[in-house]
C-alpha cells in the first residue's frame, strides 16, 4: 500500500475506529460541557485540534531529544507543562482575536489543559515509539475524532432541546443516555481496521 494510503488509514483509524471520546472515553468533560450549541462545539473542537497537534509535535521532539530513554519517567510532568503552556497560548490569542468564542468557551478553554485526550495522545505516541509522521497522523486523527464526536453530540442536543422529553430525563441524564448510544454506535467500527 502506498505511503499516502497508510496515512489515510491511520487518520480514519484514529478518528473513527478508536474514537477518543466514544471508544476510549477520554476528554469527556468538554464533550459533555461544551456540546450545547453546534457553533461553540466546533470552536471547542478546533481549539482541541490546534492544541493536540501542536502539543504532539512539541512533545515528540522533547521526548526524542531531551527526555530520551533515561528520563522517560518525566514524560507526564513535562508533557503537562507543555500542554498547559500551549492552552495558555491559545487562550491569550483567542482573547485578543476572537473574544466572542473566548466567552462562549468560558472555563472549558483553560480546562483543555486537563483534557485527558490531549495528554493521552502525547503519552500514547511516546510509549508506542511512533516516528514524527505517525505521531502527527495519530494526533490529528484523534483530534478530528474529538471534533466529530462533539459536533454530532451538539447536533443531537440541539434537537433534544426542541423535543418534549420526560421531566426526569431533562438536562444531563438524557445527554448521558445519548452519549452511551453514540458509543454503542461507534462500536460498529471496531474490528474494521
Amino acid at each position: 500500500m502506498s505511503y499516502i494510503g497508510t496515512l489515510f488509514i491511520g487518520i480514519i483509524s484514529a478518528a473513527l475506529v478508536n474514537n477518543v471520546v466514544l471508544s476510549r472515553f477520554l476528554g469527556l468533560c468538554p464533550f459533555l460541557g461544551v456540546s450545547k450549541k453546534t457553533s461553540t462545539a466546533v470552536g471547542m473542537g478546533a481549539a482541541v485540534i490546534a492544541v493536540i497537534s501542536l502539543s504532539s509535535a512539541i512533545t515528540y521532539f522533547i521526548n526524542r531529544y531531551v527526555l530520551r530513554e533515561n528520563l522517560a519517567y518525566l514524560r507526564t510532568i513535562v508533557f503537562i507543562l507543555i500542554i498547559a503552556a500551549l492552552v495558555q497560548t491559545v487562550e491569550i490569542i483567542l482573547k485578543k482575536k476572537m473574544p466572542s468564542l473566548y466567552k462562549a468557551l468560558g472555563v472549558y478553554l483553560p480546562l483543555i489543559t486537563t483534557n485527558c485526550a490531549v495528554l493521552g495522545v502525547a503519552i500514547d505516541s511516546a510509549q508506542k515509539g511512533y516516528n514524527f509522521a505517525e505521531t502527527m497522523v495519530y494526533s490529528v486523527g484523534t483530534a478530528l475524532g474529538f471534533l466529530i464526536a462533539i459536533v454530532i453530540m451538539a447536533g443531537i442536543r440541539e434537537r433534544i432541546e426542541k423535543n418534549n422529553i420526560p421531566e426526569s430525563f431533562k438536562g444531563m441524564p438524557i445527554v448521558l443516555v445519548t452519549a452511551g448510544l453514540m458509543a454503542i454506535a461507534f462500536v460498529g467500527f471496531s474490528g474494521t481496521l
Partner: protein
Amino acid sequence: MIVPILIAAAVIVVISIIIGIVLGVLSEKFKVEADPREEAVRGCLAGSNCGGCGYAGCDAYAKAIVEENADPSLCPSSDRVKIGEIMGVSLKAGKRMTAYVKCSGSCAKTNADYSYFDEPDCRIAYLAPKHGAKKCAYGCCGFGTCAAICPFDAIRIVDGLAVVDREKCQACGKCVAVCPNHLIEIIPYDAKYVVRCSSHDKGKDVKSACSEGCLGCGMCMRVCETGAITMVGNLAAIDQEKCIGCGKCAEKCPSKIIKKRD
C-alpha cells in the same frame, strides 16, 4: 545517585523557564486593554468570592459593574462610597448588615419528640415530621447546613442551635437561601433588639414545645413607643427602621424571647 536527579530537575527548570519567557512575550504582544476602573472597583470589594451578589466572584462582579452597568451596590461589605466615586455615581455608604437566626431553641430549651437518625442535614431533616426531632415545627434543626455553606465561617452550632457571629458575617445571604425553615434573616449590624423565635403556633403549644418561644401575647407591641413592633400571626416582629433600642419590649416580654443582641 544525585546526578540523575539534578539532570531531571535541570530539564524541568529549563523547560519551565523557556515556557515562561514565551508566554510572557505572547501575553505582552496580545495584551487586551482592560478598563483601569475595573481593577479599582475590584479593590473596593470584599475579595472573598462569596457570590452573594449573584456573580461568579469578585472579579466577575467588578467587570459587570464597569462593563455592563450592573448595580454597584450589591456587595454588602464593599466600600460603596469609593465605588461610587470610581463609577461617577453617588452611592450612599451602605449600612452594614448581618444575618441572625430567629430561634433560640437549643437542645436544652426545646423538647424533642423523637430521635432522628437520618442524614445530619437540615434540608433532609425538614422532610421528617415536625421538620426534625424538636417538638417545635418552626425551630432550628441544628445540623448546621447554614454553617457548612457560610464562606466566612461565621455560623456555629451551639447546643443544637445555629448562632451567627456578627463580626465575621458579611451578609452574603447564602445561609438565608439554604435554611429550609427560613429562620435566618438579614438585619442591620447595629440592630439592638431581636425576636429570637419564629413559631406561629398558639401560646399553649409553643409553651409545651419550648421554654423560650413567642407566646403571641402582644405585650411588646403595646409597650413599644415608636410602633416598631407588630404581631404577625402569633409572632412579634420588630421593624428595625423604627426601633430606637429602648429595650422596654425585652423587659416586658413574659417568655424573654425579645433579646438584646450580644
